[in-house]
């Protein structure tokens, strides 16, 4: 099975977001980057499927800046066979244009399975995997926490509100990976050395104009100070009333 894993280079999860001077993007000054955490589950799943089948290939692709070579080399060191960097200098926010570029590229390579993280933790769009599936004519299961493959059919389990869903999906397929699907491996020294000789191709991405245009970016309002509504069991009705009528969370 030829597997394509879509990954994204994102600001580290502990980044203190600052707004750039244009008021429409984040200030990249001092920001450290890493492989999107959910994508690690996708890479691991691809490697496990290849190892189990004893055949096929794992190609890791990203849409991002040239610096994303580092994250791709990391994926190669873990065991991927090949990496492709679709180069764009702008921060990728709009999923329609990102999916357009990625789907067009995937159509040019042998591919029966696309694996992605459930979402990138920068834009939090949570939509690329099912988008790709529709554009490629593939089946799709999103936010998968357990995955099995038998006779070309996936059986996937995913959490939904208050329950767990079991979904069957034919190949070719797009699967988006949720935390808990597997335990991602680290690259060892042998893998890191081998990764230096593995192919990493760069292709200039032809990004279309965004379908969703960012007009402004802002920080959330500062949190107001807390309020003590009372003490002990006597305060419970007042607390419930406040949660229901003021905070509107119940």
């Amino acid at each position, binding site marked *: 099975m030829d597997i394509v894993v879509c990954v994204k280079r994102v*600001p580290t*999860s502990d*980044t*203190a*977001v600052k707004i750039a001077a244009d008021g429409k993007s*984040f200030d990249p000054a001092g920001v450290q980057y890493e492989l999107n955490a959910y994508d690690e589950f996708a890479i691991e799943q691809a490697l496990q499927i290849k190892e189990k089948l004893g055949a096929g290939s794992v190609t890791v692709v990203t849409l991002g800046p040239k610096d994303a070579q580092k994250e791709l080399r990391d994926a190669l060191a873990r065991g991927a066979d090949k990496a492709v960097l679709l180069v764009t200098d702008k921060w990728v*926010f*709009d*999923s*329609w244009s990102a*999916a357009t570029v990625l789907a067009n590229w995937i159509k040019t390579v042998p591919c029966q399975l696309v694996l992605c993280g459930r979402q990138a*933790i*920068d*834009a*939090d*769009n*949570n*939509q*690329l*995997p*099912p*988008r790709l*599936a*529709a*554009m490629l004519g*593939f*089946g*799709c*299961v*999103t*936010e998968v926490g357990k995955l099995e493959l038998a006779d070309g059919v996936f*059986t996937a389990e*995913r*959490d*939904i*509100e*208050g*329950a*767990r*869903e*079991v*979904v*069957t*999906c*034919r190949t070719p*397929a797009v699967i988006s990976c949720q935390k808990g699907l597997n335990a991602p491996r680290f690259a060892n020294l042998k893998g890191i050395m081998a990764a230096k000789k593995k192919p990493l191709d760069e292709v200039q991405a032809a990004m279309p*104009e*965004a*379908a*969703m*245009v*960012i*007009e*402004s*970016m*802002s*920080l*959330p309002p500062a949190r107001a100070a807390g309020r003590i509504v009372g003490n002990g069991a006597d305060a419970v009705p007042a607390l419930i009333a406040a949660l229901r009528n003021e905070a*509107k*969370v119940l």
Partner: protein
Amino acid sequence: MSQNILVVAEVRGGAVKRPSLEAVAAATRLAARNGGKVIALAVGADLDAACATLATSGAHQVVAAESAALAKFSGDGNARVVAEQARAHGCGAVLMAHTAMGKDLLPRVAALLDTGLVSDVVDVDFANGAYTARKPVFAGKAFVQVRAARSPFVATLRPNNFEPVTGAAAPVSKVAAQAGDLMSVVKEIIAAASDKVPLQ
């Protein structure tokens, strides 16, 4: 372009989930700004009870797209039906709640309609001929205000963020949905072992 707004209802166990009613309420607010009609869409089988709920949710019209093959959710099958209904009603916007089903379904609908999608929306508006929406990024450490540059506008709305409304009884129509060749289908829903109360 018509400004009709299609709201895709999430029906589980024959009942409409509350976040879907919130999405209808948000749609009615937009319709009041651009003069469109709100069409609530339920897809699947045994939809009578769900349609009765949707009829008084503020929608101007309720459509039941019935298909025995879609009695259980299929991401690709449901997406084809929703995209077809969006085209049939000339919709300028398609909304759904940002739930497990909404996150799975609406991106496919947006892809079939070759348009953008803004997810996990906490506020939505229509002004100067364009839809705008506000959503969190970086796990809520910042927010972006986006403007839709392609049509239709497609959005998933964060639950517990828009108050449901009650409206006059809207007409309900039924259409036979063409499920097509299904690639992915829900086989089973297992009740969670946890005794946590779902917050939606």
